[in-house]
């Protein structure tokens, strides 16, 4: 059967227009309710735990993980499952360390928490720097992935794909702020989880609803090795480093952390993480079934022929088992997934620029609500336009490593100061700036010197840094820098305020 992947089919375009149309209608509805900064940044703090759980899941599950992990399982078997587990384990950590304190201490951004009892200007600048750096890397990876995906599935030019994504996403954020973004993510989460569930059921139906039959079929075709650990995890240090990046990087992703301000209180934040963890866990539980199904039903050669990276494995299975209409649905959902994630990233980037830099650094905390919303909108356009330009600039580049880089930077530059600010009395401004700068510089430098960039991309003979993921070094260094910087200087005001801060963190006294 010749595949329709790569040509725009009526069903694909139909579903695509339906989803975009519906989400833009939601944006219009949201725009009419967006007046204040609390509306624009935090959806008026009116999001329920169930809604936020869905939105968090929607913000987190990217097209890359859906297509990428299905492809990895299809081509490499069990190794894909190992990789999949790493994507979930950050969520319990987020619950235990960050979720409630963040909601109690901050207002709109994670920098609110880092700078809580410290000197605003230096800490805001540093935290915004760490946040925007993280967001930029992630955005590049998403935009390039978006361009490639849309080109592969719909046949339009790469540049048009990136521009379309940029424009639609900007409409959501610019006019609808956090309210629209939240609902787009909820819709996308429902579509994605629903679509993958149907896909999983279809795959299992081919094997009499027995996973053991499925695994047996895979083993028959590709040997028992497909069900065993392969070459992905070999060096314990590197494996733990990757695990640290995935786990603690989540706790430093600005667009995820921002979502905690949209719920009424800390208890709601706690419940929403529970729901998000359940949904995301379910997602990573069923994707390998799709991946194994792809390798058993289609064969690895066939999958590689469509895309050497394996990213078309899931759509191909959709087409095989559900026909062109179902493929069209999956393609449209993949597109919606990208839109939702990029919208979240843009809102987070805009808030770092407007709430952290403009309001607190430039204006020292004094600006009217009206001005703040206006600047937030301008920042949105700036960040969105930058995203499109970067997406086009990085055309053709292998940006898969940028996702690892994003998590490494987040784990090293954003998470350490955030945690230290919450738990350590002696933490002060110097410590905060030191840890952010150390974490950011070290993680980026080590990634450049690592095999992924130095050898594979820059074509040098041997890597200077053997670690594929620097988190174990850069995150530790950031904590140490934070400790050293704080211990070498005294900031009595910061220490004095710690007791007040504890009241707010644990009892919620004075939370916004």
């Amino acid at each position: 059967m010749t595949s329709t992947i790569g040509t725009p089919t009526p069903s694909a375009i139909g579903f695509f227009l339906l989803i975009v149309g519906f989400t833009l209608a939601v944006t219009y509805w949201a725009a009419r309710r967006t007046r204040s900064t609390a509306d624009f940044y935090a959806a008026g703090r009116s999001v329920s735990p169930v809604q936020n759980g869905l939105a968090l899941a929607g913000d987190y599950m990217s097209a890359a993980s859906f297509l990428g992990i299905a492809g990895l399982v299809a081509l490499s078997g069990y190794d894909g499952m190992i990789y999949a587990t790493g994507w979930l384990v950050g969520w319990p950590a987020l619950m235990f360390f960050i979720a409630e304190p963040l909601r109690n201490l901050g207002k709109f951004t994670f920098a609110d928490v880092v700078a809580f009892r410290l000197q605003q200007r230096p800490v805001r600048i540093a935290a915004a720097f760490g946040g925007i750096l993280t967001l930029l890397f992630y955005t590049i990876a998403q935009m390039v992935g978006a361009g490639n995906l849309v080109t592969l599935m719909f046949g339009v030019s790469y540049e048009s794909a990136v521009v379309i994504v940029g424009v639609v996403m900007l409409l959501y954020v610019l006019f609808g702020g956090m309210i629209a973004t939240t609902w787009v993510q909820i819709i996308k989460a429902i579509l994605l989880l629903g679509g993958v569930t149907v896909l999983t059921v279809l795959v299992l139906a081919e094997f009499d609803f027995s996973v053991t039959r499925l695994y047996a079929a895979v083993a028959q075709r590709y040997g028992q090795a497909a069900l065993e650990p392969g070459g992905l995890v070999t060096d314990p240090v590197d494996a733990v480093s990757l695990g640290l990046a995935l786990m603690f990087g989540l706790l430093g992703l600005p667009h995820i952390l921002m979502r905690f301000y949209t719920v009424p209180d800390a208890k709601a934040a706690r419940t929403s993480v529970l729901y998000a963890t359940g949904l995301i866990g379910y997602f990573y539980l069923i994707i390998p079934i799709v991946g194994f199904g792809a390798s058993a039903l289609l064969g690895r050669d066939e999958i590689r022929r469509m895309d050497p990276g394996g990213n078309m494995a899931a759509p191909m299975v959709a087409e095989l088992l559900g026909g062109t209409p179902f493929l069209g649905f999956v393609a449209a959902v993949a597109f919606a997934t990208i839109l939702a994630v990029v919208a979240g990233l843009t809102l987070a980037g805009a808030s770092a620029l407007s709430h952290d830099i403009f309001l607190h650094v430039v204006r020292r905390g004094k600006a009217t609500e009206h001005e703040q919303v206006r600047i937030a909108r301008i920042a949105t356009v700036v960040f969105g336009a930058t995203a499109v330009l970067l997406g086009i600039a990085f055309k053709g580049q292998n940006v898969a490593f940028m996702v690892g880089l994003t998590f490494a930077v987040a784990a090293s530059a954003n998470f350490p100061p955030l945690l230290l600010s919450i738990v350590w009395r002696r933490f002060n401004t110097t410590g905060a700036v030191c840890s952010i700068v150390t974490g950011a510089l070290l993680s980026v430098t080590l990634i450049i010197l690592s095999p992924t960039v130095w050898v594979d991309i820059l074509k040098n003979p041997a890597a200077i840094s053997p670690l594929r993921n620097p988190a174990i070094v850069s995150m530790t260094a950031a904590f140490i820098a934070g400790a050293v910087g704080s211990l070498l200087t005294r900031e009595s005001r910061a220490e004095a305020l710690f007791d007040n801060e504890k009241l707010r963190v644990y009892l919620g006294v004075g939370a916004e």
Partner: protein
Amino acid sequence: MMLTIALFILYYGFILLVATNRSLLATRVGESTTTLGILVGVGVLLFAWVLTAVYVVWANRFYDPEVQRLRGRLRG
């Protein structure tokens, strides 16, 4: 605190197991081709969620009432 330690053991234990003792994870379960590794992988996912659920139950049952009590004392 205990939950955090449990989480670390769960995940990093799994990862180190993969890195150091592949053959254990490759052992087949019973008569089928399903490997121990697959079961362990699924277990990690499920148990990670269970840990979050345990936290929520604990927090709702014990932590919140304590917070209420302390806030009441602050007011008084």
